[in-house]
């Protein structure tokens, strides 16, 4: 994959250091206040792949929105390379569970949103093509999103994020809506892309196996309001296999922490 190599080579950064320091957050529902995060301390080293596991609705997504800068925490601080995060920045890109491609733009024009928003569209033609090749969508460049399958749409969303050379990729259950086979191949692709480009990754998932297959560290969160409940270092070499006894073992351990004792 020549194209893939060029995109990776051009990314000069290594990865962003993320530091969540005593972060608490809540949502004002009008009549009541909904606490979602309760004193989260979490550090992500440059280039590290961290998975966040937790029961659904525990506030995992909020954590990513704070890291992306779409919201600012009620208490505590979010630091990126030591600088407080106050607003979104294309160096920290969020990929949602729903691909949320703009339906009025072709796949290529969707990937071009980042460069266009930053006013560098004219100089980014080759980069956009590279990103499309990277996710194997080059022959679907001029197709509208409603003509794509679920997996293709999510790959397009991934290309839209990667074209900006992110230093931190925030993945909010990006494979949650895919069928199991597409999911398996997308997991491998996510891993390959990360190994090539060297950005930091925060992956929210509620698939324990997925977390163990991909991440170097798995953070287990509690019920809402979320606290860090456990931290599992997964320093196994890649590629990992789901029937590896270590993975099977850790999977059981994490499920027990989450309250699914067998």
């Amino acid at each position, binding site marked *: 994959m020549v194209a893939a190599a060029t995109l990776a080579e051009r990314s000069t950064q290594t990865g962003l250091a993320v530091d969540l320091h005593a972060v608490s957050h809540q949502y004002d529902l009008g009549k009541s206040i909904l606490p979602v995060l309760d004193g989260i301390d979490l550090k992500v080293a440059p280039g590290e792949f961290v998975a966040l596991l937790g029961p659904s609705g525990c506030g995992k997504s909020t954590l990513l*929105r704070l890291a*992306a*800068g*779409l919201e600012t925490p009620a208490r505590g601080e979010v630091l990126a390379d030591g600088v407080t995060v106050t607003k*979104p*920045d*294309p160096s*920290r*890109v*969020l990929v*949602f569970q*729903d691909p*949320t491609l*703009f*339906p*009025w*733009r072709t796949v290529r024009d969707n990937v071009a*949103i*980042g460069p*266009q*928003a*930053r006013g560098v569209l004219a100089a980014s033609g080759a980069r956009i093509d590279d990103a499309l090749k990277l996710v194997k969508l080059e022959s679907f460049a001029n*197709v*509208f999103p*409603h*003509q794509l399958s679920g997996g293709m749409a999510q790959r397009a969303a991934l290309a*839209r*994020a990667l074209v*900006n050379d992110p230093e931190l990729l925030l993945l909010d259950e990006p494979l949650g809506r895919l069928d199991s086979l597409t999911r398996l191949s997308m997991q491998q692709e996510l891993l390959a892309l990360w190994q090539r480009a060297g950005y930091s990754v925060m992956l929210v998932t509620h698939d324990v196996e997925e977390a163990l297959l991909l991440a170097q560290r798995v953070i287990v969160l509690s019920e809402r309001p979320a606290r860090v409940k456990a931290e599992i270092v997964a320093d196994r070499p890649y590629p990992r296999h789901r029937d590896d006894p270590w993975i099977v073992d850790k999977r059981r351990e994490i499920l027990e922490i989450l309250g699914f004792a067998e």
Partner: protein
Amino acid sequence: MTSWPDPMTQAMSAIADRKEPALRAAFPVLWHNGLIAAGTWLLAAAVTFFLPDIVPYGSRGLFAGILAAGAAVLIVLSFLADRLGRIGRGLVHYGPWYIALGIWLAIWELITAKFGWLPKPFFAPPHGLFHVYVTDWERLLICIFYTARLWSIGFFSGIAFGFVLGVALGWSKTFAYWGMPVLKLIGPVPASAWIPATFFLFPTTFQASIFIVALASGIPVAILTASGVNTVNRAYYDVARTLGADGRFLVRRVAVPAALPNVFVGLFMGLYYSFAILVVAEMLGAKYGLGWYLQFQTAYSAYVNVYAALIIMALICSGLVKLLFLVRDRLLSWQKGVVQW
């Protein structure tokens, strides 16, 4: 030799059978409905020409001649439709309509001019309407020009202003807080109710007329655009913001394209309203114009002329609607179901 068909003759006749469609293709397939339509048009021509009018309307012979000529063209097309490709397929598709049109014209002639069941001056036969075009075409052309000028200035300034206002109302909370209640109050008021105020506000009656047309077309565009921008999926904004978009980008590249289907609903409504208001707008001291023509002729009980002008207005309006559909289909080709692959 027996008379039983041997394999050889059987094969020969099979080849002959197979050749038959090829032979038929040499002679074009007849468009049957075209011939029937020619018949009904000739019938209408005969009714018009040979039966006397109870009260003469004029242009009887000319109209019957045109119908007969139309019938002749239909006969020719009946033999050619097969070879005309897309146009031919269109003809064939609307064949039943051409038949119905001939029948309808014949009946219309009978119940108005021939039997007088629907009497003058309230009703007119087809050739009566045609007579208006023959005798009054110069004035009608001037009226079309005046109306086109008033409508296009009014409509386009109205939708431009309505669109900008709608985007502002849908985007800015402050703007919506102050603007929405006012718009909701003004919206249902017919544009004609503003005539007294426009007399004071605008130095000339032409400007006042433009304002009335602009108001009628602008308000639905503003309301629909505002609701369109307001209901844009918030996730689109989040995506654009994480990719480095500023407020300007969010409005121009996210809010507006996402709201465009709604904007077009507003445009269609505005188009209809603007035509409905033309008559009123041209009451304001206009010298010419289709709306003015309608009022002028109504005042003189020349209802035939009124109908003739109405038909022109209806044709122009439906032509513009068709044009707007084309623009919409082009701009919204991304919508599901519009483009299939």
